């Protein structure tokens, strides 16, 4: 049954509450018909691709924004990432999106992190940076990767534009309660294996519909050991499992990250918040509709071979035979994927020549991602004929990287060093990779033509992208020796 969302209200049987369930309960304004509740929303984030149209429709309907102080907007989806950028976008009609977002934000008193604001950047990078997301809040954004922010113990999920309008006008949403799934990850990641590899591995095993409609709680020793940026990477990819959202119980790592951020509470309010935040966890006897377990110790770097994030193999693996997929994929879909990717069953992924390498996106563009990639490329050169691009996730990340000299490492190696934004994670009509080009990418989606018409995307960690850029082919980052 599709309606994973539907069964929620009936599950108040024996057993304790999940973290997601507890956050939900704290936000119920009123029960609606059937399984649905009217749920209070604490934070709404907008961006220029959908924010302008939502505000425009709201105006046309003669409605007001209920709580502008709880709403923030940024420019990330359409804005250029080339140095010297302005309102004139490469995307032919992009300027209108920027101006609609800006005018709408101004009209309604919404804080906008505009083009030249030092706080500008990808929405799921800047919201944590500014302390906009906090433990226990409900946070929505018309962007599917909003689940990223569940890393802070928030209930965060992606919505459409109409739902964004609904939040603008009412600071609520009408929705059926999602079911809970727990993914417990024991053990410890080996050196050179990252949260991205973990996420890809999980999607490969559970399939791209594997969490359909559920809120995933990531738990276990391996998750607790992750820093906040790695937790964000893990939660980011939950939407590639068709999850409603993802959540990680907040802990000292979370609190240390948030303390002192611009919109986080201070003084007595911080102490009062901490008292509530420390209680944000699933009860020991909480009941999850589905439980999965993984051992992080087993993992090696992962790479995708096909056109769905579930098409994943270990970096030393090969394109699987159809039969080895055990019915997890239809024959026609399989044939279509390998034809699109120009691969054959049994072809090793490592060693496949590439045309481009991309580091960026809401999945992997934060300081730690850039530092780890820089450690691999320092003192080395991108292989001849490979176009390599690094796009920091926010203007703040870019400035910090420049202060640390990381920009020089990328530039000296032959990478383009960009302004912050979503950039070539997808092709919005501006820049793209070429037809049939093979790209190793730290992004989240390898769909057909996602990064450009007929572009072939292989998803991987920033380390794998960096190592591949140097080698000119898909390469295992663990095999790059110390810098010469």
């Amino acid at each position, binding site marked *: *049954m*599709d309606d*994973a*969302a*539907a069964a929620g209200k009936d599950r108040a049987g024996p057993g304790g509450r999940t973290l997601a369930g507890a956050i939900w309960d704290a936000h119920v*304004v009123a029960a609606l*018909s059937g*399984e*649905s509740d*009217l749920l*209070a929303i604490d934070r709404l984030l907008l961006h220029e691709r*959908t924010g*302008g149209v939502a505000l*425009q*429709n709201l105006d046309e*309907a003669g*409605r007001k924004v209920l*709580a502008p*102080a709880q709403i923030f907007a940024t420019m990330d989806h359409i804005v250029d990432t080339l140095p010297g950028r302005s309102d004139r976008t490469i*995307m032919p*009609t992009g300027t*209108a999106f920027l101006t*609609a977002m800006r005018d709408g934000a101004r009209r309604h008193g919404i804080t906008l992190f505009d083009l030249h604001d030092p706080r500008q950047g990808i929405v799921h990078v800047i919201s944590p940076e500014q302390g906009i997301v906090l433990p226990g809040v409900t946070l929505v954004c018309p962007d*599917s990767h909003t689940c990223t922010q569940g890393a802070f113990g928030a209930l965060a*999920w992606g*919505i*459409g*534009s*109409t*739902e964004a*309008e*609904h939040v603008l*006008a*009412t*600071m*609520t949403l009408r929705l*059926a309660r999602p079911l809970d799934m727990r993914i417990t990850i024991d053990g410890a990641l080996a050196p050179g294996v990252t949260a991205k590899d973990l996420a890809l591995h999980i999607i490969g095993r559970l399939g*791209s*519909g594997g969490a*359909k*409609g559920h809120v995933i709680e990531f738990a276990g020793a391996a998750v607790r050991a992750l820093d906040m940026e790695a937790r964000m990477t893990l939660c980011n990819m939950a939407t590639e499992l*068709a*999850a*409603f959202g993802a959540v990680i119980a907040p802990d000292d790592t979370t609190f240390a990250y948030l303390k002192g951020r611009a*919109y*986080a509470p201070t003084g007595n*309010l911080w102490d009062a918040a901490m008292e*509530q935040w420390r209680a944000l966890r699933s009860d020991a006897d909480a009941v999850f509709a589905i439980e999965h377990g993984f051992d992080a110790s087993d993992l090696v770097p992962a790479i995708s071979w096909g056109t*769905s994030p579930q098409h994943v193999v270990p970096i030393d693996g090969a394109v699987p035979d159809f039969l080895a997929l055990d019915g997890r*994929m*239809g024959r*026609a*879909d399989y044939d279509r994927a390998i034809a699109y990717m120009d691969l054959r069953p049994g072809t090793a992924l490592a060693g496949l020549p590439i045309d481009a390498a991309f580091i960026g996106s809401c999945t992997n563009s934060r300081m730690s991602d850039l530092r780890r990639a820089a450690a691999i490329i320092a003192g080395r050169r991108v292989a001849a004929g490979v176009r390599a691009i690094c796009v920091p996730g926010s203007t703040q990340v870019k400035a910090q990287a420049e202060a640390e000299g990381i920009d020089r490492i990328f530039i000296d190696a032959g990478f383009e060093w960009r302004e912050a934004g979503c950039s070539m994670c*997808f092709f919005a009509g501006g820049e793209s990779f070429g037809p049939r080009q093979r790209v190793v990418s730290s992004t989240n*989606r390898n*769909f*057909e*033509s*996602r990064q450009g*018409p007929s572009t072939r995307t292989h998803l991987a960690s920033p380390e794998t992208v960096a190592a591949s850029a140097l080698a000119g082919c898909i390469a295992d980052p663990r095999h790059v020796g110390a810098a010469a």
Partner: protein
Amino acid sequence: MIPLIAIEGIAVPLPRDNVDTDAIIPSREMKTVSKSGLAEGLFAGWRYLSMNSRDPDPAFILNDPRFAGAQILISGANFGCGSSREHAVWALAEYGFRVVVASSFSPIFRANCIRNGIAPVALPEEVTAILMAGATAGQPVAVDLRSMMVRQGEGAWPFTLDEEARAMLIEGLDTIQLTLKSSDDIALFRARDAVRRPWVYLR
């Protein structure tokens, strides 16, 4: 929103899993700050022979005259995965689709459908396979939101939708208008919650 109670007619089979919203409407086709003018970009990457042309690719099913005017689309698992862009649903609606039948949906796409008068009907894979085979042979499909049944030929299969979604589709409700009737409840909740969690209520 136009109410959707029951519909019967030819259906377009799209026998693929994981049809993503980039495929339904590529980013480059979202050219204006608007909900309309998107039908032409529907499935653009598959529907036209090249990115820069509007020459129909005869191999793509929407270009098959037998399926012209179809209001029902049938596909595989995890339909509408990927980007949350509501433009995917606006494009389907503007093209004329009122029902998407699939073995499962991405949750955001599903919610977007309901808010735009498209019924997301989830049926088991065995059933969608039967429906697609029938649709390919030109058999009409009937979907009824009152009886919550899908029919084709002699076959009949029940489906489920949560009550709220069903009411919104059948009555064509404007949800914002509906929720604004609860403005007092919302104000009361926010006032109480602001005492409990003052840090949430920024000024």
